[in-house]
């Protein structure tokens, strides 16, 4: 299958390993990955901070850059949620009905990585090997906006060598929330503290998730506290093999 990658601005800039892993994983599974170079950002930060008009060019860009592709994947439940649920709204409010329809259509062809693997490609065992004790944080937007359900866990359970441990209060927010972490930094930090306590209590050496943003937040806290727990994007675990690990 020919799959267009939306790398997301965050992974592109700060966490390229997540986007690279997505490419290498899909290619290993026999698919062709293309990266339309005109892509930038989905505009979620603008929409969620209250700048919908400013997000319009980004919504337009996403729709036009990815319209030619039947299947689009992004290694982020949050960005996919924004594309599916916010793009047509912004387009309808600040653009026109034609753009809104196109945004909704392109959005319906955009999948989060675990959705693409399980629902579209019909695979749960991706042949990965990752010999670590891992706990999974279901990020809020993966869980409640994109609604990926237990697909990431089904994929992780098939990874050889991986010891999956349940995260207490897993469905509680880590406190990132985009600009929330800046505008309400203290509340965000209090939420993060509880998330880290729960992560450390599992004894895992790796915390994984489907969103680089939440992992940046959690990882930043775990690093500051020198807990020794690493954050690794789900795509990187799924892309790992005995040769890379």
């Amino acid at each position, binding site marked *: 299958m020919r799959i267009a990658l939306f790398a997301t601005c965050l992974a592109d800039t*700060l966490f390229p390993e997540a986007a690279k892993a997505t490419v290498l994983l899909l290619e290993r599974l026999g698919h062709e990955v293309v990266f339309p*170079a005109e892509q930038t950002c989905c505009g979620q930060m603008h929409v969620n901070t*209250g700048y919908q008009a400013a997000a319009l060019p980004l919504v337009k*860009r996403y729709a036009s850059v990815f319209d030619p592709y039947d299947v689009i994947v992004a290694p982020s439940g949050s960005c996919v949620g924004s594309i599916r649920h916010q793009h047509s709204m912004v387009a309808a409010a600040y653009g026109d009905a034609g753009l809104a329809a196109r945004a909704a259509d392109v959005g319906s062809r955009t999948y989060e990585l675990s959705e693409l693997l399980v629902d579209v490609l019909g695979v749960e065992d991706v042949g990965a090997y990752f010999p670590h004790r891992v706990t999974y944080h279901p990020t*809020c937007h993966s869980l409640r906006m994109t609604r990926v359900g237990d697909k990431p866990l089904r994929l992780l359970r098939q990874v050889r060598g991986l010891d999956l441990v349940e995260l207490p209060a897993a469905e509680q*927010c880590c406190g990132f*929330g985009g600009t929330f972490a800046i505008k309400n930094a203290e509340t965000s*930090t209090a939420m993060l503290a509880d998330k880290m306590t729960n992560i450390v209590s599992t004894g895992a050496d790796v915390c994984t998730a489907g969103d680089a943003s939440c992992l940046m937040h959690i990882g*930043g806290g775990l690093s*500051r506290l020198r807990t020794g727990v690493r954050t690794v994007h789900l795509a990187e675990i799924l892309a790992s093999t005995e040769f890379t690990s």
Partner: protein
Amino acid sequence: MSTFLGMPATAPRGVGHLRGDQTFPRAAHDALGNSQLRRNLRHATTTIRGKSGKVIAELPDWQELRDAGSAIKADVMARLPELLEELEARVTEAGGVVHWAADANEANEIVTRLVRETGSSRVIKVKSMATQEIGLNEALEEAGITPVETDLAELIVQLGDDKPSHILVPAIHRNRSEIREIFLRAMPGVDPALTDDPPVLAAAARRYLRETFLSTEVAVSGANFAIAATGTLGVVESEGNGRMCLTLPDTLITVMGIEKVLPTWRDLEVFLQLLPRASTGERMNPYTTMWTGVTPGDGPQNFHLVLLDNGRSAVLADTAGRQALHCIRCSACLNVCPVYERTGGHSYGSVYPGPIGAVLSPQLTGVADNASLPYASSLCGACFDACPVKIDIPSLLVHLRNQVPHPPAERAAMAAAAYTMARPRLYANAQRAAKLARIAGRRGRGLPPPFSGWTAGRDLPEFPSQTFRDWWAER
């Protein structure tokens, strides 16, 4: 500036409790530093989440009930004028008197006048969000009338000279030993040997209020619903203080937001299943009282219904925002909110705290008066899933953020980011420039405001040696 009188209007300033005197982050700062408060909140919200989840799981048709509840409320909003007129006609036919209050000031004036006309200088009150919203107690006190809160939690708040911090359990921020201290300090005639055992505390409230219930001639209540087709009102409660207020006095004055009307009697079959399970986590609350006008020989013989706008018409005028009026005040969204759990209700500065308060308060006052509240959420979405009438609170928050007057520096930064993101080559150059800037600086510490809050508790990631797009280009 002149405004056409019939245009929707927000709640007036200077009256009631919809506006805090500091921003959410500032108020939250104090709450976050109070470890006792955080323990109390964590214990209470964890308890109620467990109870509620259990009784909701007993119903195989919970989602269908939510769908029906949501649709009934949407229908109510679409037909509000005719439903209010119908309600007025039915209540009047049944012997009640209907009053219309455009805002908090008018509602307070009406209630004060009605109480004065009875000659009574004291009223007993059933817990009511509407009367807290308008600051009725303060207005009554100013007029020389003593309002006595009879709900246990409201009593704790009133005796403690405190403010409510939760829609359902206004004293949720207090634990049993704090409640004992408040009773010992402020409850006249309390047994000095009072313990902090909850049944003992409840019994103290029973003894304290008994005589007041039996000797007060006027009660003030809110309403959980009003049936337009029959003129029936209902109050859902637990302790029996509601029954006391709604049964014993000669005069009952009920203050109700105009959005609380329901079309038909049958609609109750939906809300009486949704509300208790979402709210107190019970299959049914201990007591629900329903009355239609006046029943000769049974209950109050004078009934007044005050229909309150106070900003609701302004909420209704916002087509995207009007679903906030579907709220049935169950407080399920508070109990699942990770922000509420850590900051408590006082941080929101309004009688409506938590996720629904973060949307409803700015909607009722106009967003400029509560500009920090739409940001008091990480948009995690737990509130949407918990809402028994499916109010999409995260989308409403995003909608309101789009109306907030933004700080100029933030506006400029957002515009610059959008400009860059809309131009791929500029964007790629900016990625490289950012990396160089970071390499020049120290890793992850001491960023300037507004980012200093981030680096106070977290490290920033190392900049990678290569962006993804550079890696791709080199393949």
